[in-house]
């Protein structure tokens, strides 16, 4: 279509720029707050530009922690979050790949039953079975462990469905060629199917890493000891209703640190992220 450029384009540019600013504003404010000292923030006169305490605040956040509330260095929390996110993402991908492989490439009694068993978990988010699940994890003595934090979350109907959908598009002739070339099922899986799925796997990884990193309710229930805390839980504990105790500059530095890894993943792997998101949901 013929576009009458420039003049008409101002409107979309204006709307989009405004959108970008509004979306970014809360994060910008958090960043600014993380560069000022406690006094400047708490008297309510914080300027709109960064202050001189960037290094000091981030150093304290990462290696020391807040003085009055959590007392755990945020570095440890980030490590916990990272371990949790990686375990969840890799675990989900691994078990979903093999389940999808079984459902698509084999015929066996109760195949559909198995498929539906996995599928129906879509209808059982952790939020609706909080306490019974907590109790099972407690009975298994998995409270305050990485296993308890991650294993109950790595079943994934979404990933299984995505991989199943992808496997269905792999030409049958590749299986036949592999069989003629002397490859059994597992060899076909490892040599051919998984390498072919690499984009789907990467897309899934982006989505699930973010999912894992951002977990809140589950770690809140499962972790009690300070050294098992994740950063998303940790920040909440830094903020207390009696304002006097809250060290906002540290809390905001923590917020920035908590956002950084998943945001970097999304921005750096934007294509994969969009693919992963739109393909799993639709």
């Amino acid at each position: 279509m013929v576009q009458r450029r420039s003049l008409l384009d101002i409107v979309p540019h204006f709307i989009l720029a405004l959108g970008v600013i509004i979306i970014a504003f809360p994060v910008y404010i958090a960043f600014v707050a993380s560069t000022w000292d406690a006094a400047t923030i708490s008297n309510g006169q914080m300027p709109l530009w960064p202050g001189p305490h960037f290094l000091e605040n981030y150093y304290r956040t990462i290696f020391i922690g807040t003085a009055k509330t959590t007392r755990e260095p945020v570095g440890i929390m980030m490590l916990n979050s990272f371990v949790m996110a990686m375990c969840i993402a890799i675990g989900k991908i691994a078990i979903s790949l093999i389940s999808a492989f079984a459902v698509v490439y084999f015929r066996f009694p109760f195949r559909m039953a198995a498929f539906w068993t996995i599928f129906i978990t879509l209808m059982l988010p952790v939020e609706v079975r909080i306490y019974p699940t907590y109790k099972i994890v407690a009975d298994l003595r998995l409270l305050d462990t990485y296993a308890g934090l991650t294993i109950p979350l790595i079943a994934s109907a979404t990933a299984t469905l995505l991989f199943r959908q992808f496997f269905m598009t792999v030409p049958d002739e590749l299986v036949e060629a592999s069989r003629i070339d002397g490859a059994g099922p597992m060899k076909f899986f490892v040599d051919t199917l998984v390498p072919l799925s690499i984009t789907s796997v990467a897309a899934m990884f982006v989505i699930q890493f973010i999912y894992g990193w951002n977990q809140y309710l589950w770690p809140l229930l499962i972790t009690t000891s300070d050294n098992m805390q994740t950063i998303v839980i940790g920040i909440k504990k830094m903020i207390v209703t009696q304002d006097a105790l809250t060290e906002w500059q540290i809390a905001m530095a923590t917020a920035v640190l908590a956002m950084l890894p998943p945001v970097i993943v999304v921005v750096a792997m934007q294509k994969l992220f969009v693919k992963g998101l739109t393909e799993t949901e639709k």
Partner: protein
Amino acid sequence: MEKRVTFNGRLLPYMLLAPQLLITLVFFYWPAGQAVWQSFLIEDAFGLSTQFVWFENYQILLSKPDYYRTLAITLTFSALVAFLSLSLALLLAVQADKHIKFASGYKTMLIWPYAVAPAIAGVLWLFMFQPSLGLVSHAIRALGVDWNPVLNPDHAFTLVVMAATWKKIAYNFLFFLAGLQAIPKSVIEASAIDGASPMRRFWTITFPLLSPTTFFLLVVNVVYVFFETFGIIDATTGGGPAKATQTLVYKVYHDGKLGADLGGSAAQSVILMLIVIGLTAIQFRYVEKKVQY
């Protein structure tokens, strides 16, 4: 659809499925079953004996005005967030779909909040609207409004709605943009030749063609408010003040933490499960495509 070519193997497929099935059975089905079972039991005050009471827990729950208030809050919350974040996202997506400079730059700068944890989103907004030191609070005060989300239920609710909307725009934007890009350009061009004004073109052609996406997003947004805003609420208001920001999920968590009424808490969980099943059923049109069996 089924594969024509398959492998033989008796034990192998079961071994491949075992990890996933084991986890779903232990951590999904067993607890869900437990919840259903417990919702039919009442424990005496000392936890010494339990009694099977059929639907009494549900009767008790549904006779409390408190529960309906929470339900109403959850529904209002859903409606507001869905409406606000869908309309804003659509507005932005329509602009980003135009062939303008920096379109992909705008896209990147609009989608990243997807990666922000709900709890962190809550903290960001809490800080801006914090009554004594929040930047925006000061601005609002300057306008003569006595802003205080810590004490004022309406203010608290507004805060939670804003944070939840902010967080969901990225997701909706992305799907709207994908939906817009899937509309064949020739259809739009045909309507332009037919002399429709851009506004009219949008409402008579683009918007109807987007309706599957809109419908899908509507359901997703409702699910989001019901189940994923827990972090936002816990980080900003803790359900208060006076339970004004308490959703159904938050109530399950909160009541359960007190630990007094196991049966009642289980009944709440079961009702939530039914809601999820209902929402999933509504979404079935889309799920069907995925399953194809």
